[in-house]
């Protein structure tokens, strides 16, 4: 099963441990991970279901290119990491 992990910049707002999830795509993996910490969804995705502009999602260390579709296929053992992209002052 893929693993989904959220960076401390996110888990300081909404605690959520790294999880193994039964999912075949990135969107279903994120959905499964949010089931463990429902408020986290609105930190990572906007209300249209797209990854927020200043959040970055990596699959096996490659940043995803499309913030809206999230249809990247996942295989057993793939690692999804969600981080805070750096902005602001």
């Amino acid at each position, binding site marked *: 099963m893929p693993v989904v992990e959220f960076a401390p910049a996110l888990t300081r707002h909404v605690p959520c441990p790294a999880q193994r999830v039964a999912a075949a795509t990135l969107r279903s993996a994120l959905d499964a991970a949010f089931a463990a910490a429902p*408020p986290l969804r609105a*930190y990572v995705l906007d*209300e*249209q*279901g797209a990854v*927020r502009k200043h*959040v970055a999602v990596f699959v096996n260390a490659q940043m995803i290119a499309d913030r809206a579709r999230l249809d990247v296929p996942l295989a057993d053992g793939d690692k999804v990491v969600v981080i*805070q*992209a750096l*902005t602001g002052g």
Partner: protein
Amino acid sequence: MQTVWIGTRKGLFVARRDAGKWTLGKPSFPGEPVTQVLVHPHDGAWYVALRLGHFGVKMWKSTDGGSLWQPIAAPAFPPKPGDASPQDDPTPWTVDLIWGLEGGPGELWAGCLPAGLFHSRDGGASWRLVRSLWDRPERKQWFGGGYDHAGIHSILVDPRDPKHVTVAVSCGGVWQTRDRGESWACTSRGMVAEFMPPERREDPNIQDPHRIDHCAARPDVLWCQHHGGLYRSDDGGLQWQPIAPPAPSAFGFAVAAHPADPQRAWFVPAHSDAQRIPVNGRVVVNETRDGGRSFATHGEGLPQHDAYHLVYRHALAVSPDGSALAMGSTTGGLWISEDEGRSWLCVSHDLPPIAAVRCS
């Protein structure tokens, strides 16, 4: 006035008057951008709106005077229709900023950027987009004034009838509902947008009212700090009357209406659209006591040289009895007046940029 709430770029502060002295406490939400704070006029609950740079807008509520905060729902748009082409509606249906927040009996109104108005009947546990305003065809003519998109910053709930709500949109004019959001009318007649092409300057739907306020005791008297100057209406906004530009400037963002006297209001002038700084480095507050025919300029206690503070649209507030005011600046100055704006006491030079203040 005993308490002032200060929403800043780096947290929510509360200033309290104790034994005749104002003191600032430690911030709630330290380091987080606070865009709005509301002390609900009917149930006393505190609400704060955050704009987390990375993670969207969030709202928190405290029912014990700020000791314990609980997360509540934040306004969110419904799914954007899949058949809306970018040309037809280029506005993103995602809340970027909670810009205005006000309470009526058993309800909350939130004005956002993009310019959605949201309503809650359950203390912020859920929010509903007011589709009757959002779906108006005129909404697609609105445009951003300083931001990429239009936003709703001012919300006035009529003390005589909470179904009557007036909102101001930058840039989309002044809109009113008399049936709690079932239907709306644009009420910006008389306003003039000098920066527009000549044919559109008096278009009510593209005006940029930086801030509106009403006299609580006479809500048909409205005041507006407009992008192009000052206006007053004494007929509930059906017609806005321009006010002759006072010294040192008619440009600015904030206005506070006296809660009891419909002839009185305070403004904070800045140099101009192109120079959003005080005139000649002097921070002043302009007050009219005669409906805008004349103004007194107050500077006592405010920086009078080499000062570059700007006061944003929500950063001037008056106490419910009209005796005291609070004012905060983008460079972190906080001042309080306990003599109706004539003289000011500096509480801090050193706060983060201030977005909003509220008076008890």
